[in-house]
């Protein structure tokens, strides 16, 4: 394979240099193909646009959803209704906080679930029960139960937290169950011969997991993890059912005050803007992974 190739010569090996993107595009489709695909895209979009424009309520929809004044007003906020953009900062805060906790908690659950031995049966059982339960209950019900149930318990600290905190707890509970399963799939995908090699060197079970299994497992599950986080970003909107004014709720308030739904378009746009970078980043990681496999090395 790479017999006799010194480290200094490495750039010489690997796949042949990729052609420039434009050339690759035209090679894939052919020049005629590019023309046809452009034309077909224009025709399809044009037909959809025509259908919408020709519909009986087109003018009203344009005024209700896309009025420039309302778009601007809901974006910036008015005296009576909050700015959708400022409210969206709360979504970002919820997402950031929840994500960090989920990454850690879910990993813990996945690890507990993979510990063998009869002594650990109760812990394994608890981990299984947890994932079954919280993957099964709709998020909105968990939000209600945590958001209205925990304050009702009258506990000292736990019952007097901010609404948004209960929202974050509910998101963490539900998403950790999903993410734990993603981690577990990753752990299972590492071949048992890797564990045999680590254990045969005298590494403990924990150290084998930490140094050999988890690094390989986590690398493999990064794309599906990011996919779950795109879901999480959107579901931050559901926290509004507990009374927090985040972007979707702010948009709703604006809509109710002004009988105009441009605020929803703004909120939707903000969510899309937030998820697109993560989606592209996921694509990038998947592509990089494939390139590395094809080049025959993993880093």
């Amino acid at each position, binding site marked *: 394979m790479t017999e006799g190739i010194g480290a200094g010569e490495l750039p010489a090996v690997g796949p042949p240099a990729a052609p420039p993107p434009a050339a690759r595009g035209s090679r894939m489709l052919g020049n005629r193909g590019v023309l046809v695909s452009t034309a077909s895209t224009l025709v399809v979009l044009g037909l959809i646009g025509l259908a919408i424009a020709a519909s009986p309520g087109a003018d009203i929809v344009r005024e209700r959803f896309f009025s420039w004044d309302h778009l601007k007003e809901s974006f910036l906020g008015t005296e009576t209704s909050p700015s959708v953009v400022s409210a969206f900062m709360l979504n970002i805060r919820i997402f950031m906080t929840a994500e960090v906790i989920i990454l850690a908690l879910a990993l813990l659950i996945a690890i507990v679930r993979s510990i063998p031995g009869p002594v650990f049966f109760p812990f394994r059982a608890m981990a299984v029960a947890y994932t079954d339960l919280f993957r099964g209950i709709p998020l909105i019900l968990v939000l209600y139960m945590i958001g209205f149930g925990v304050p009702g318990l009258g506990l000292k600290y736990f019952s007097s937290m901010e609404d948004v905190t209960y929202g974050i707890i509910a998101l963490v509970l539900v998403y950790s169950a999903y993410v734990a399963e993603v981690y577990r799939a990753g752990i299972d995908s590492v071949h048992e011969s890797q564990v045999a090699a680590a254990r045969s060197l005298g590494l403990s079970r924990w150290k084998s997991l930490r140094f050999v299994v988890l690094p390989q497992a986590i690398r493999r599950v990064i794309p599906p993890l990011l996919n779950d986080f795109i879901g999480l970003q959107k579901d931050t909107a559901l926290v509004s059912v507990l009374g927090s004014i985040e972007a979707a709720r702010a948009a709703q308030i604006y809509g109710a005050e002004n009988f105009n739904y441009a605020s929803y378009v703004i909120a939707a746009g903000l969510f899309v803007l937030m998820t697109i970078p993560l989606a592209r980043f996921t694509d990038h990681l998947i592509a990089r992974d494939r390139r590395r496999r094809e080049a*025959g090395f*993993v880093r």
Partner: protein
Amino acid sequence: MSTPTIGGILVEGVHKSFGDNHVLRGIDVKVHEHEVVCLIGASGSGKSTLLRCINLLEPVDAGKIIVSGEDVTAPRVNVDRVRRGIGIVFQAFNLFPHMTVLRNITLAPTEALGIDKKEAEERADSLLERFGLIDKRDEYPDRLSGGQQQRVAIVRALAMRPNIMLLDEVTSALDPELVAEVLQVIRELAAEGMTMVIATHEMGFARDIASRVCFLDAGVVAEAGPPERIFTDPQEPRTRRFLQRIIDAGRL
């Protein structure tokens, strides 16, 4: 059966089943210190399983295994400590793909033995140097040829300074032209007096290197003896049939 010298291995009446598959059926093997014992036999005769049992990667169902004077099959034995004294090399190398060659080698000395990083790296470098792999120290395993990967796997096991090495068909996954470089490393270890148990399909190699050869059949040692006797004058009809098949296949 006499006790083997300190540093050797004694396998006594070991049984091991996987479900209904009774792989080891009361196997006895004795390996003295500095001896090289080759296990030969058809696939499924229990060679790999025996090695995995000695390394405690598989718990035995019955019988006992004594390594360097200690009953490693006794309950409550510290498996990690036992394994640190026994190096094992696998057919499929089993290098850690996410680590450089150097890290593959230093991981266990630093994390299992607690040796500091610098000393572990020096130790790794001197082994890599010795086996002609020093220019690969910062490469990832997937960039190496099979023969190089297997030599790294041997170095990784040696970095723990084991008293005993178990080699499980270490050349079976290699292209023929890469087999020699790995066998050469094993010859060097044998010349140094490393106690080794080698499961192999390379009969010519077994004949050269073994102090004793054990022919395994259906989970027991059907015949054991010095290689010149096993390969030229086998007593058991089963051994004769096996060797005949090998000769017919042009492998001896």
